[in-house]
């Protein structure tokens, strides 16, 4: 088995037994959707104006929860030391973590998205699939940068608090691009949407490459 797949496999097995990461992200995502329904009067304004924003607040904050969990799991019982002793490159460890974080976030989002559609009276049609496509791209971008930032924050004294402080400013381009693209799909005017999708894809590629190269500095002692 290749090292990267071994890490993904390990994380999936742990997740299937504990179900901690996905269930917390899922619950948090739905809670965000709920609280926003109270924050904005549901009937008084055009839902399609604020719906993209609500969706991406739910996704990006739930992602932070999952990322924190993913690294806390490695920090407990010195599991990270064991991983570092394993015969694999540091960059491969990073890629494995990105892949498993990405998978868990997607699974949680797959359940949050229909709830979002129902709450906002949208339709289960082609639009829904298009939004799912944007969610895949945006989630990959968040997983790419979040996996290295959560490893950085796991080394600090205030682990859980540090990750949002580091991650939110850096993921602003992702949030803007994803919200704009989602809004375009919802309004039906998709002219110019490709530049936002390119931005999301470019962000993922650049951060996957840079993080792959510098990850060894994060985990070395």
């Amino acid at each position: 088995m290749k090292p990267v797949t071994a890490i993904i496999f390990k994380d999936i097995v742990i997740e299937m037994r504990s179900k901690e990461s996905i269930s917390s992200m899922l619950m948090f995502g739905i809670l965000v959707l709920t609280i926003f329904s109270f924050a904005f009067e549901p009937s008084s304004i055009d839902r399609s104006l604020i719906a993209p924003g609500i969706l991406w607040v739910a996704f990006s904050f739930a992602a932070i929860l999952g990322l924190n969990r993913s690294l806390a799991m490695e920090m407990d019982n010195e599991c990270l030391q064991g991983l570092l002793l394993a015969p694999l490159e540091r960059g491969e460890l990073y890629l494995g973590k990105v892949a498993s974080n990405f998978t868990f976030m997607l699974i949680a989002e797959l359940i949050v998205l229909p709830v979002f559609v129902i709450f906002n009276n949208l339709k289960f049609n082609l639009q829904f699939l298009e939004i799912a496509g944007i969610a895949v791209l945006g989630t990959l971008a968040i997983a790419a940068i979040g996996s290295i930032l959560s490893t950085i924050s796991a080394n600090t004294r205030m682990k859980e608090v540090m990750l949002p402080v580091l991650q939110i400013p850096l993921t602003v381009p992702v949030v803007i691009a994803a919200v704009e693209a989602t809004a375009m799909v919802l309004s039906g005017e998709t002219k110019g949407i490709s530049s936002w999708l390119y931005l999301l894809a470019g962000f993922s590629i650049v951060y996957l490459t840079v993080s792959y190269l510098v990850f060894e500095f994060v985990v070395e002692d």
Partner: protein
Amino acid sequence: MRSKILGILSLVLMIVNLYMIFIFAPNEATMGVIQRIFYFHLPAGLLSYASAYLLGFGSIMYLVKHDLKWDRLASASGEMGVLCTSLSIMSGMLWAKPVWGIYWTWDARLTLQFLLALIFVSYLMLRAYLPEREKRAALGAVFGVLAMVDVPFNYLSIEWWRTQHPQPVIMGGGLDWDMWKVLIVSFLTFAVLYAYLLGRRMAIAKVEEDVEYLEHAILAND
């Protein structure tokens, strides 16, 4: 010695600069006196970009060379970045209230500058929560590199998101030659002051490191 020269030079230049800004510079036709804020605002804004590049440069050099000197450069640039971004944002707000009628708008340049300030602050916060010297340098450097890579993405996305900002006047050639002179002196003054402060901050960081080292040595002897 070098820092003393820079310090005295920046003091002299600052006096000249203040004279030029408040007395020599002509009044702007439509905005009047308030336009003089521009001579503080523009150098501070440009130096905040310089801070971002210095932070990124120091971070990369530390990852390559593993010399703490580069980490001191990066962290000092981070602090200078907070100073310059807040100076440019605050002076911009003071200017915007009478001219635009509002303190703040989510326009491209303002948003970008604000985001840059947030990134500098989160970089410094990360360092504050890493007690161990080597670890602080390594993780700070990695975050510095990630943050530097983020700047062009921020620029692109915000530029596409909001572009109602009036284009800068100096590129349009709408600036009086006397105003140009003041602006050039302002740039020079702020650049010298920046170099002086950066140098002092790095020297203080060196002393802090030495103290930390001595404290550890004393504790180890007890």
